[in-house]
């Protein structure tokens, strides 16, 4: 097989496993909700359960049909984004989810960008002087960033910059039309979300860069008298970024997961706070739809990252294909 055929075969096998995983996750989600003890309509509706709503849910979700039919109904609707109508607001659940998703995506992507912009230079600086006091100081800083829970970072940032110094807004996502206002509202939450990943990425870059700098082709460059800064900037850093790219998928998933805490503390609307509020109201159809979205996003993000990696480093596709 040629290289491009191998890459294609690798991508095809990844796609197949993605489809299977999404199907499995949908099944798990379906079973999770169905296996809840007690009458299903009361579980779904909670205190709102009236005979009419019960009948509507029974009909909408096909509760009067067999489990297999119900699963098919759920999966085929989820695949087309049809999650039914919300019993609280009488709007399509899809619209409710789509309303808040941009906020969460803005938060997650800005946190990821921040983590890369700050984390990569820290890793490079540490790797240039391995074993120095600067390196060991940065190592301790990175590990503190990684271990401090997002919850703690959010609370402390909130206290210092929003309550104490009044530099940045306390709550919300800003006025919809006002870009500057929205950016100001984005600063604290994205810093809070990014900090752990700053530490993680810097450690990853440092380790990968040290590995690369120990390789033979780098020694050859040194023998030719190429300066250390040119070696890192032009040759080594590119290779050292491969492991960083491969964790970005997990990173995005993790950031979206942690966004629940951040969105609650900074009172931002988003998919995390939507799940939280829907659970509080026992509005499970909305929760279910949100989780389907998050899982699909997580899996697709990992797939995209795998593909980028297969293109960046052909050994990955060859090794498995």
């Amino acid at each position, binding site marked *: 097989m040629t290289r491009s055929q191998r890459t294609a075969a690798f991508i095809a096998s990844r796609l197949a496993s993605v489809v299977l995983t999404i199907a499995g996750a949908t099944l798990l989600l379906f079973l999770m909700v169905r296996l809840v003890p007690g009458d299903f309509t009361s579980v779904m509706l909670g205190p709102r359960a009236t005979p009419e709503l019960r009948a509507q849910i029974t009909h909408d979700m096909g509760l009067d049909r067999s489990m297999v039919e119900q699963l098919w109904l759920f999966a085929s609707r989820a695949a087309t984004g049809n999650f039914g109508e919300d019993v609280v607001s009488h709007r399509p659940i899809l619209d409710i989810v789509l309303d808040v998703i941009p906020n969460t995506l803005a938060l997650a992507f800005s946190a990821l960008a921040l983590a890369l912009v700050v984390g990569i230079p820290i890793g490079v600086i540490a790797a240039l002087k391995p074993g120095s006091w600067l390196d060991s100081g940065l190592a301790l800083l990175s590990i503190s960033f990684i271990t401090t829970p997002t919850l703690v970072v959010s609370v402390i940032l909130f206290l210092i910059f929003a309550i104490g110094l009044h530099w940045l807004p306390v709550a919300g996502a800003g006025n919809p039309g006002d870009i500057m206002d929205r950016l100001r509202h984005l600063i604290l939450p994205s810093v809070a979300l990014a900090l752990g990943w700053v530490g993680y990425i810097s450690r990853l870059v440092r380790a990968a860069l040290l590995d690369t700098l120990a390789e033979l082709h780098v020694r050859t460059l040194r023998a030719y008298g190429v300066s250390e800064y040119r070696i890192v900037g032009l040759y080594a850093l590119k290779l050292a970024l491969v492991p960083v790219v491969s964790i970005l998928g997990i990173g995005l998933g993790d950031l979206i997961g942690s966004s629940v805490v951040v969105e609650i503390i900074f009172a931002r609307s988003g998919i995390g706070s939507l799940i939280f509020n829907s659970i509080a109201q026992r509005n499970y159809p909305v929760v279910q739809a949100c*989780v389907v979205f998050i899982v699909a996003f997580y899996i697709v993000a990992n797939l995209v990252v795998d593909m980028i990696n297969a293109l960046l480093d052909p050994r990955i596709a060859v090794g498995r294909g």
Partner: protein
Amino acid sequence: MSGLVATLKRICSERDGRLGLAFTCLILVFALVGPLVSPDPNAIDIKARFAPPGVMHLLGTDNLGRDLMARTSVGTRYALTLAVMIVVISSVIGSLIGIVAGIAGGWVDRAVTAVFDIVNAFPPLILAFALIALYGKGSATFVLLVTVVFIPQFGRMARARAQTLRTLSFIEAERMLAVHPVTIVVRHYLPNVAGPIIVLASMNLPVVIAFEASLSFLGFGVQPPKSSLGTLIKDGFISINQSWWPTVAAALVLAIATLGATLLGEALRRVIDPKSAGVR
């Protein structure tokens, strides 16, 4: 016992190990001794609401005038207990499932791996959230549900080790000699899987501590009247305009606990499993 002393000595031979051990001991002393020397954590004293740290109340008081030194130390103890329980249960169950999958191979292995993949397709916090929302709160349920989220990691690790072990000649020889499979597992697989699992468990402890705090902060973990670090941060956060001290105290304890446990876990990994320690 001498092995433990040797491990501790090697952990103390480097800065991160010493720091980790120091922070961990600090937190342990706080969690174990704190409740013994401080007043009743649930005693309400309305006149002393939001008292700043002082001689009477070392860490001040909360919105009901309850002593925060007592509440934070009791909360720390409870949070640590839950985290250790979750890590122990999920590592034991994960190891057993992983070993069985690794030894059995075939469809058993494929099924187990598929289930692990599916559980991992959910961001951990979101999965725990959904499970707790559906299946109820309460400490025992909480421990069980969070355990589900953490089992796959241990399972994967044990499975990979078991697969390697299966091909080794001394285990093949015992199989030929018709030694009972359970005996082989107990005699060879468990001791060989234990090392990496212990390392993974110690690395996961701070993750679980933070996880529990986040869930409790959001109201899905520890329920009143019990308190953990997460509920203390939440309680403090609600009245943050009157007094910032309760939140910061619990948040700092949480940060020190996770930092200490991580540094200690990494030092332990370098001692037990030097190959996986990477570039230092």
